[in-house]
């Protein structure tokens, strides 16, 4: 069997988790590689969690929040976005490819976007191979 990446997805309770529920209701099929962790807001995700996931063998991490401007907590997703920029920059420092991390926005009624996001990161990471499989020093 080929390489099956493990993806951790942090989904906010209000939009993306609900969209994932809806994807189920609509019986949309998507890669089985993703494990969803429910958070109240994408802004709740401490960067430490992303690094922790990668260092424990996650091949990719995705944070899914509400569309910018539609955060259930005013601007939590903007905070998440600011953090994401930090994470993306720092991933290089910690020896991970930035492509292993992604943040995306979708509403509770957009399971199709969720499926696209899940499929997207799974396929991308599948091509990259397992996390840290490469010689870090190049």
């Amino acid at each position, binding site marked *: 069997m080929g390489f099956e990446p493990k993806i951790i997805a942090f989904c906010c309770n209000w939009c993306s988790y609900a969209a994932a529920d809806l994807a189920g209701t609509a019986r949309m099929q998507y890669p089985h590689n993703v494990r969803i962790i429910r958070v109240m807001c994408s802004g709740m995700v401490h960067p430490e969690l992303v690094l922790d996931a990668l260092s424990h063998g996650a091949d990719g991490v995705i944070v899914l929040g509400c569309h910018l401007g539609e955060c259930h907590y005013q601007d939590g997703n903007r905070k998440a976005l600011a953090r994401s920029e*930090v994470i993306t920059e720092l991933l290089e420092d910690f020896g991970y490819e930035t492509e292993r991390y992604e943040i995306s926005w979708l509403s509770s009624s957009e399971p199709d976007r969720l499926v696209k996001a899940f499929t997207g990161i799974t396929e991308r990471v599948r091509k990259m191979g397992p996390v840290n499989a490469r010689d870090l020093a190049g």
Partner: protein
Amino acid sequence: MAVRTVLEWLNSCSGCEIAILNIGEALVPLLTRHLELVHAPILMDHKYLGQRGDGTEFNIPEAEVGLVSGGVATVEHLQVLLQMREKCRILIALGTCATHGGIPALMNGQDRKEGWEGVFQTRTTDPGCSVPDVEVPAPLDRVYACDEKVEIDLFLPGCPPNPALIAEVLMAVVEDRDPVLPHKSVCDTCPVIREGKGAVSVVRRFLVNAEFLAEDPIDRMRCLLEQGFMCMGPVTAAGCAGGGLPRCIAARVPCRGCFGPVRRDGNQMLDMMNALASNGSDFKSVVDRRSLLRFSGAHGGLRPLRRKSAAERG
């Protein structure tokens, strides 16, 4: 009965040992009554392989407690550390180099080969020199904190560590109790005025003085981070405080982070950058962010930048 004690230093500058001296008056009863120093390279000439260097067994005497300063950068450091672990019932990592790699672990952020060549082959002064492969112990792939190689019973970070805390730890061992050590961040004992960091849009280097009135006490000064200076206080372990005030802050200088991360497995750079971004500051205004790990580059905190493949470079 006095507690058998050994001191060792690995990749160390002897600052930690000076900190022991700085315990001051309390050192006298410690040395004369409570501790029996059976091995301490800084004080006595005790060779590892016999006094004539003809032994075959690595020799550090057994002891109740061992203090080890410095990180692990070479094969020899590692050998010594393993010996220490074997011989000491309680092994204490003394100083930030031992606990988090310290300044030498800045090396971890670079390619090791290039780093060593830089050290031994400064072409302007040493034309034709090469990295020695005899006499100098072989380097490890990077600089490690002690707990990455052996189990450590007690961590006492600081660059240098606080003499009062060294005394507390030693007395705790003598009295067979848990030492009372701070576990919060530098801010815990920092009395400055704090209101929130939301107004900081960019972070400045400490090239100009902070704003304060010289006649005012420290607790009338605005938080240095809130003044826009890169103060590492919130992400740095407390312990430096003497007379109740963090040392650098007492001098109205931002915290440099020398006690390492506030949570032992924390990451000062990540935490600081995250805190800034969360507060809406432009994290890109931080000059040389990797230097935020200047004291805690071990534990994989600092790594050489990943070389991008040809495809990634485009």
